[in-house]
């Protein structure tokens, strides 16, 4: 897993990203994440293998995909119904003939393997935009640290070209992994989802111990500016108590800037497309601007600079 030929699994390269760091950025969304946050807006980012998304809005039920699939993974449960995909079978597929053969583009593959050289070539195309806007590349996910070898090679490549790099991370990785990568990073967005380890485990599937420890170590390193990013999820982590605890914690560690990401349900459709259930349910309502302002003011009362929405 090293050198220009090492391959990583990504699910999107998004040009003209303007909310994931300074200037015009290209955000590379890496696939695979050890966390399972209930509110995750990019559910296609979770697993470490390519997956099929089926967008019912585009599907015209022509059932061509059923004929095309050599593994018999697609079927219809009943006459006139939408297709059903046996995703276990898909794990062994490398051809994705169903998506390639869909006239409506209702089937899409999330995740493709790419070498660092290919990825570098891709992001370099936008270098003039980076130069004119003070932008660069943002590595997001999924969890980039889950593919640390690939990420490291790619980031080294960026630094050789003088491209500004931002890491968007949950912080859930061995310290050594994160430490190594920080040498090639100009800015970090570091997520804190909840201060209570037990609640954190319930909401994300993992404890926050390693995450908070890594944050402390990263801030102590004082090498890279770190912006704390907090997804604010109504009823899950937005209590005054947890907000204050978070503010106190990051302030004491020496963080200066907090970035609130208000909950949005934009990712719901992708759960359906993946044949999964949205863990939060469809009834959850986003915060009002006033609610967010209140939370913001708590952070500001701890002398933290606080912005909303990336």
């Amino acid at each position, binding site marked *: 897993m090293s050198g220009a030929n090492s391959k990583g699994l990504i699910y999107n390269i998004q040009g003209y990203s303007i909310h994931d760091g300074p200037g015009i950025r290209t955000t590379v969304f890496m696939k695979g994440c050890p966390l399972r946050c209930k509110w995750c807006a990019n559910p296609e980012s979770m697993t470490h293998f390519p997956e099929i998304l089926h967008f019912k809005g585009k599907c015209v039920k022509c059932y061509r995909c059923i004929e095309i699939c050599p593994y018999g993974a697609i079927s219809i449960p009943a006459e006139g119904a939408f297709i059903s995909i046996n995703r276990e079978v898909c794990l062994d597929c490398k051809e994705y003939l169903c998506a390639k053969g869909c006239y409506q583009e209702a089937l899409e593959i999330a995740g493709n393997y790419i070498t660092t050289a290919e990825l570098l070539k891709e992001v370099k195309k936008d270098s003039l*935009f980076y130069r004119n806007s003070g932008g660069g590349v943002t590595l997001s996910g999924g969890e980039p640290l889950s593919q640390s070898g690939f990420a490291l090679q790619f980031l080294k490549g960026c630094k050789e070209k003088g491209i500004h790099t931002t890491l968007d991370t949950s912080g859930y990785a061995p310290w050594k992994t994160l430490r190594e990568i920080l040498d090639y990073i100009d800015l970090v967005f570091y997520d804190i989802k909840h201060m209570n380890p037990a609640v954190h485990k319930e909401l994300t599937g993992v404890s926050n111990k390693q995450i908070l420890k890594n944050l402390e170590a990263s801030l102590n390193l004082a090498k890279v500016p770190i912006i704390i990013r907090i997804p604010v999820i109504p009823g899950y982590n937005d209590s005054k108590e947890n907000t204050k605890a978070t503010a106190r914690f990051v302030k004491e560690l020496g963080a200066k800037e907090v970035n609130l990401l208000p909950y949005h349900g*934009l990712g719901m459709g992708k759960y359906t497309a993946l044949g999964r259930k949205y863990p939060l349910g469809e009834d959850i309502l986003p915060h009002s601007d006033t609610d967010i302002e209140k939370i913001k003011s708590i952070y500001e009362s701890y002398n933290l600079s606080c912005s909303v929405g990336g």
Partner: protein
Amino acid sequence: MAKLSYVKAEVLEKTARVERLKEAIRSQPLQGDWERDHIYTEYWRHSEGEPILIRRAKAYDKVQTERTIRIFDDELIVGGISQYLVGAGFYPERAQKWIGEEWDAVQKRDADKFIPAGEKEQVYNDLDFWKDKALDCTVKEAWQSMGLDIVNDMIEEKLTYDLLVINPAGRQIVDFPKVLKKGIKGIIEEIKEIKGKTVVVTAEDFRKHNFWNGCAIACNAVITSAKRYAQLAKEMSEKETDQRRKRKLEKIAEVCERVPENPARSFYEALQSVYFTHVSVEVENNSYGYSLGRLDQYLYPFYKKDIEEGVISREEASELLSCFWLKLSTIYWLTGASVVQFSQSTNYQNVTIGGRDKNGRDAANELSRLIVEVDTVLKLRQPTLSLRYHDSADEEFLFKVGEDIASGGGKPAIFCDGYAYSVLPFYGVSPDDVVEWAPVGCVEMGIPGKGTHFAGYFVSLPHCLEMVFTNGIHQRSGKKMGVDTGNVENFTSFDQFMDALFQQQFESVVEKLSMALRTSEIFVAQDQAPLLFNSALISDCIAEGKDIHRGGAKYTNTILCNPVGMVTTANSLYAIKKLVYDDKVITIKELKEALAANFQGDCYERIRKLCIDVPKYGNDIDEVDDIHRELFRRCNEVIVRNKNGFGEPMAPGYLGILAHHMHGSGCSATPDGRLAFTPFADGSLSPYPGTDTHGPAAVIKSAAKANPSPALSTLFNMKFHPSVFEKPDGMRAFWALIKTYSDLGGYHIQFNVVDRQALLDAKAHPEEYRDLLVRVAGFSAYFVELSPAVQDELISRTEHAF
């Protein structure tokens, strides 16, 4: 109203007066006013034998002297091209046929409805007079005599379009600064002086003599018209009981008595003078594209002086400017159904702001900012607003412009100074004149007061592509509109295909259309429809003694050939190259059959899928973009080999307006997967809807590779969701995007910041909006991929996005 909290607001809420005037204008239906046309026809009936230059001028004088004039409630700037608050005449001396045919239908048609206001018997009686005299008959007779009957079929089958016949002149910016400085009086003096110096010896001298006399008559007619308004305002003020309105009417009387006859002395007089001049140009030849040029530059001295001397406040200036803006929005151009589908009644009165001065410094001033603010607040369909972008533009000003863009409506359009500065010298434009350039009409480069533009013609490139497959025959009509290029199945290489397309099909069509255009816009028009007032305000018409149709303007070689469907053709050619010649996945015979069958039937549907899956323009992929670039090179090469009627090369232009709908409706299926008789990609640089899946930066890169030089125009539309502008960082990134486009040599770009309606449409027709981005931190998705519930949420949020 859309306001961005981080952009500094300098003024202003609309005043009550402006609010009322806006409401009055919006609630008025558009009226087709026959009065001007009847007066004109009456003069024509009784002036047989008069020299055309005098006859046209006198008919104009009669119109300006006799037509009904009105001053409406709350107006501060007065005048109009019809007797109604919102209206226009028909100009049957140009095109009469559609009027008679569509008189009863115009109220009921889908787009651009209007009320035909005129007594039907009189109208048909007048039309009967024109039926063998109007340009739309004489042009066709001339074509017939030249063996160009096929052009009528080309129009019928949308290979080109109607404007070739009915609208010779129109797109120019007259010399407003000269009117402000010397007054119309000064121009009449200039005419007298040169006439006095000329001894009439040759027939050419005599024609000049008539031209000067005609110009003087027309100029005097404009003064007469203004004085009639002065008189009317005076009469109204005497009867007015409301003291505030009375004072306003007295002021209007005073201003109209003074301008445009005399030099303007104040901001108010300057605005009224510009409006009268503009309206007088339109009364002579109502058309699309009469533009105002660098309004923020030539009005600024008046504004500055009045503000400094305390003559008016900023608020008063803003109110006057708002009234001026509203009055521009009342000017329309009436057209028949065939033209409506190409441009609608939008008449492209382009106002330019920004740019640089002669020392290369940023020319934007306080008035430029006021103009943007008025435009943002009023949100009108017209005027068109354009920014001349350059790197030294002030960021605060750009933010203000960005706020206007973010508020929707596609205004202002952005034009990069760099491209204009590099291309205009090719047409012999002097360095001093280059500095003054401004867009005319929708997107074309013009030189204010010194250049004139004719309508030019559109030619559908995908039609030419179709004819490569059919050996010169247009499929639907079965008519031979192209030339023999042999059986496409025998072609052995992609180059052979390209040569057949450009050196044969395209070239033969362009030759025929150029000849048709020279005939209609220059030869027939100069004898039948010379323009006197228009010409008097364009250098060097007076000095040369020639109207614009005879080449009197200093810069006249800007007669455009506009290829349409560039992106559709580029995508199609790349599909042919890749599928047939490179990868050999299908044969040209299979493709030909699939196209003829409009991809219907299972095996053809498979071919369509292959065509669709081939990479498309707009994703920063060199292989496709190179073909797009090559199209510009090849088109330009053919176009400049043809002459414009003055012996100079035709100029290429790539402005599509809405022509992609109209031309697409006559063209069979294309190898990019597009189905028969559906629209092409719009403009010349916009990706085909839904095929640009790599974001705006990639689209910009693709567009900038085109190298259209020496084209006088390109057209490039981009869709954005308002979320892009929510924060100053987003705004800054937006301008970095524009800077990059400019750095890479781009010319024009405009943004469609989608509103609620567009999002509803996107939900219903996802295939056309696949490229619509929703920008949220740490989240990756396109609008069309969101769940219906989430789409609804975003739709509901759009109404109050700021």
